[in-house]
């Protein structure tokens, strides 16, 4: 006998509690089953529905009411919180008749329920905040008119490059005067500096990304450098680099990352004698904007043969990176141990810099780095960055917006006169609303030497479904329906690495043109306008005051 509780469905969730509700049209559906087959969360299932239809019978010329019972096959959304519809829309992608589509439910109560078994909600993706970001509120308001005619983005020569590496102060340059010439003092140490495109691809690991996604990015980067003459560099994320890449001439376009798990570094160090090129730089990750203070985790089912080999670990084990570098006691020690020892490994020919989460304590880190002659740069990753896996609470509620954090750091460097010595790179939310070049330019005018992108490239190059309404965000589960963040061959075969590469090239070429279209009316072409904050305005007094830019209305 059914309990009364079960019978009245009182312990069940209604579909209105769910963030996405499936709209299915019975009249269009051919019951092919493709939607249920591709649904990554099994949020929909084929079911049967008994229908009672009232119709009229005609009997001897007299109309009489009658009922019939019909059983039909339907697509039903399940109301199990562990199989909630994530709104990815893969069902609609495969439906031949446009019969199914998830629809966002703004009144959902998902988070009230998504902690069954005492396990907090974890996911991939980014902060769920669809509000317009500060970066997208900034406008470029200093337009050259008459007194300094604006430039022609299509005709003038533009220098859209930045420097990654420690720039010596002019006072510290090892120059000696011979007559009217200044010549470098032989044998003097000059820190390595790379001239790169000011938009980099930020750290996303092989493992977090599927083989075709990572390969597509890498191919695109190589093509941009070798054919298009746009020197884009790409960070490996934590997890090493493919052995063949380590020994190839393309290594110079990559930034291997060291994070707290040190995954892949045994292999990188052992490959040193066989390297024919130095990497572009080395990034030491101390924090990540999307989940500050949190470690990384690559789930066991993503650790397949290739990943295990690259990372130097057994297959099918959870790979946890601790929240902090366990061997470090202090920033001074971290700088001394990591930056200097890694610099030494490459004979001080490679810039080595740390990446931290956006935080109120960024200035403390910055001031320490500014005093350290081997610190090559600082990357600050703001709260609008993304991740492959984190607790929802970390993503939504932890972190610091990048705009004011970056601005504070730049102005601090200006105060100490080191704004040119230690380049700042900003990340976290660049291109959040698809305005890649505008966001990058705004950060450059606020003081960044360059920016990193992650989720933008996933969306633009591989059609990632994710958005700020918690759409999809299954990166942590290895069930990415686009094949971007999965190691399951059945899924990643959906992604064409060549097409990803082509899109990467498209994106950077168009971004370069858009940067010119921004800088040309501002009259800037010979140097990247780093810190040219007089070019910015915002229609919000509080933001204007905070960033020390003009309020415009």
């Amino acid at each position, binding site marked *: 006998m059914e309990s009364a509780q079960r019978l009245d469905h009182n312990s069940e969730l209604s579909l209105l509690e769910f963030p996405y509700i499936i709209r299915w049209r019975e009249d269009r559906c051919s019951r092919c089953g493709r939607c249920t087959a591709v649904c990554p969360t099994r949020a929909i299932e084929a079911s049967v529905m008994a229908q009672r239809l009232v119709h009229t019978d005609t009997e001897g010329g007299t109309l009489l009411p009658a009922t019939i019972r019909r059983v039909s096959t339907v697509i039903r959304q399940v109301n199990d919180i562990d199989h909630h519809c994530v709104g990815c829309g893969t069902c609609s992608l495969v439906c031949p008749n446009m019969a199914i589509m998830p629809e966002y439910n703004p009144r959902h109560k998902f988070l009230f329920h998504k902690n069954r078994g005492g396990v907090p909600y974890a996911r991939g993706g980014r902060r769920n905040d669809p509000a317009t970001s500060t970066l997208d509120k900034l406008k470029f308001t*200093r337009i*050259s008119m008459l*007194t*300094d*005619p604006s*430039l022609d983005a299509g005709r003038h020569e533009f220098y859209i490059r930045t*420097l990654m590496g420690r*720039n*010596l*102060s*002019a*006072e510290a*340059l090892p*120059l000696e*005067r011979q007559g*009217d*010439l*200044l*010549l*470098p003092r032989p044998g003097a140490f*000059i820190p390595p*500096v790379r*001239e790169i495109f000011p938009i980099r691809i930020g750290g996303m690991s092989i493992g977090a990304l599927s083989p075709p996604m990572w390969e597509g990015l890498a191919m695109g980067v190589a093509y941009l450098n070798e054919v298009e003459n746009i020197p884009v560099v790409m960070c490996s994320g934590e997890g090493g680099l493919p052995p063949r890449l380590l020994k190839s001439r393309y290594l110079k376009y990559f930034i291997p990352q060291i994070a707290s798990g040190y995954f892949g570094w045994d292999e990188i160090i052992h490959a040193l004698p066989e390297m024919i090129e130095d990497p572009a730089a080395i990034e030491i990750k101390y924090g990540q904007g999307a989940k500050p203070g949190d470690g990384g985790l690559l789930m066991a089912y993503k650790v397949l043969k290739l990943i295990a080999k690259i990372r130097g670990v057994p297959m099918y084990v959870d790979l946890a990176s601790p929240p902090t570098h366990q061997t470090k006691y202090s920033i001074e020690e971290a700088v001394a141990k990591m930056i200097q020892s890694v610099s030494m490994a490459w004979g001080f020919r490679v810039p080595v810099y740390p990446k931290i989460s956006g935080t109120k304590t960024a200035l403390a880190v910055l001031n320490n780095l500014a005093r350290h002659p081997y610190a090559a740069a600082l990357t600050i990753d703001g709260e609008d960055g993304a991740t492959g896996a984190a607790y929802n609470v970390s993503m939504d509620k932890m972190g610091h917006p990048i705009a004011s954090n970056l601005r504070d750091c730049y102005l601090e460097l*200006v*105060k*100490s*006169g080191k*704004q*040119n010595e230690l380049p700042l790179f900003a990340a976290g939310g660049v291109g959040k609303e698809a305005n890649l070049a505008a966001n990058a330019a705004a950060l450059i005018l606020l003081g960044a030497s360059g920016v990193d992108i992650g989720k933008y490239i996933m969306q633009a190059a591989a059609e990632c479904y994710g958005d700020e309404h918690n759409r999809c965000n299954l990166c942590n589960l290895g069930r990415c329906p686009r094949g971007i963040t999965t190691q399951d061959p059945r899924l990643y075969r959906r992604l064409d690495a060549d097409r990803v590469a082509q899109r990467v090239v498209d994106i950077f070429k168009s971004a370069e043109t858009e940067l010119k279209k921004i800088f040309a009316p*501002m*009259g*800037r*072409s*010979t*140097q990247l*306008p*780093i*810190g*040219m*904050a*007089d*070019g910015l305005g915002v229609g919000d007094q509080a933001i204007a005051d905070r960033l020390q830019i003009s309020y415009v209305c």
Partner: protein
Amino acid sequence: MCRLSAISSAEYTSVMDAVMALDTMKEGHDGSGLGVTLKDLGGEFEHLKEYPILSGIYSDAGRRRTDEYMERCGFKAKFTWEPRITEGAGINVQRRGHYLATAYQFPDHYRDRPWSEQEELLTRTRLELRRQGTDDDSLYVFSFWPDTITLKEVGDPLEVGRFFGFEQAPLTARVVLAQGRQNTNYSIQLYACHPFFLQGYCTMTNGENTAFVPNRDFLASRGFYGYHGYDSDSEVFCHTLHYSHHQLGYPLTYFKDVITPLKDAEFAGRPDGATLGLLKRSLRQLCIDGPNCTIGFLPDNTVFLTHDSKKLRPGIVGGKTGHYGLMSEECGLDQVLPRRQRQDDIIPMRYELVIIPPGAQEVQVWNQRNGSITTVS
């Protein structure tokens, strides 16, 4: 666009010559002001060359305050010059107060100090006086340096020149820089008026400097007491010149490498190519983005002119041995040196820096691409 007029001469030249050139170039400026800086002075100052001259404008209260302050610092006034102010029809210049150039003797306890300490004293004294006049506009000081006078006032340059009585009793000097100022996107303010002067270095510039804010922030953060002001985006040129030549000890030619660096691919043409990449990176934020033509002088009275690649109308240098003009427009040169050999005029291209050594006996054209110097005399 500001109009620039400079004269370098073996003999003392009237400041009015440079002002007349500005008037000839009138189409290019809106008559919002005149600034002149004279170096290697003649006339009454010819025999006062070792005495620093404080140039400024004072209200009665400002004059008293300045006198008291200078006395308190131990400076002893040796000689004061006042222009023969001419007012009346056709001169629409509002008299602001006392226009004075006073030569002082160093305080006793500074007389034997090293020059580096003396120059710091002069600059700090000027800045302190400027600070004292900021709130009530009771005094403006433009330069405090030996053998140097600066005058500035709002109005049509020719009218301001007449106002100062330069037609009857001109100041004379071997180096004269004059600028007809146009207010661009900055308000009309005397401290925004070129030429700008710091410790023997002086520049005036036309065109807006789009890289002003990064330039300014970089200079202001060098920790040097004199990098102050920036009411005009052109003041950074003077301070960059001072920074590269005085602070870093670079030869003048490197000033051009700092403000308009070569492309990396062009370094190979220079014998010091390896240095250029280092300078370009380390002084990245002093790179200008034009379009600017700048004319200036060094403490030793070397005068120069250069501009960046975006300057659609380059400056011009011409004249004869012992008397050269450096102008933003050819018509200004025609006014000052109508009988020169025009075929010898130098209209520098973007890679060139025109240098007139002290004494104005020759003109050197330094080529940034290969480092060569062509001398014309």
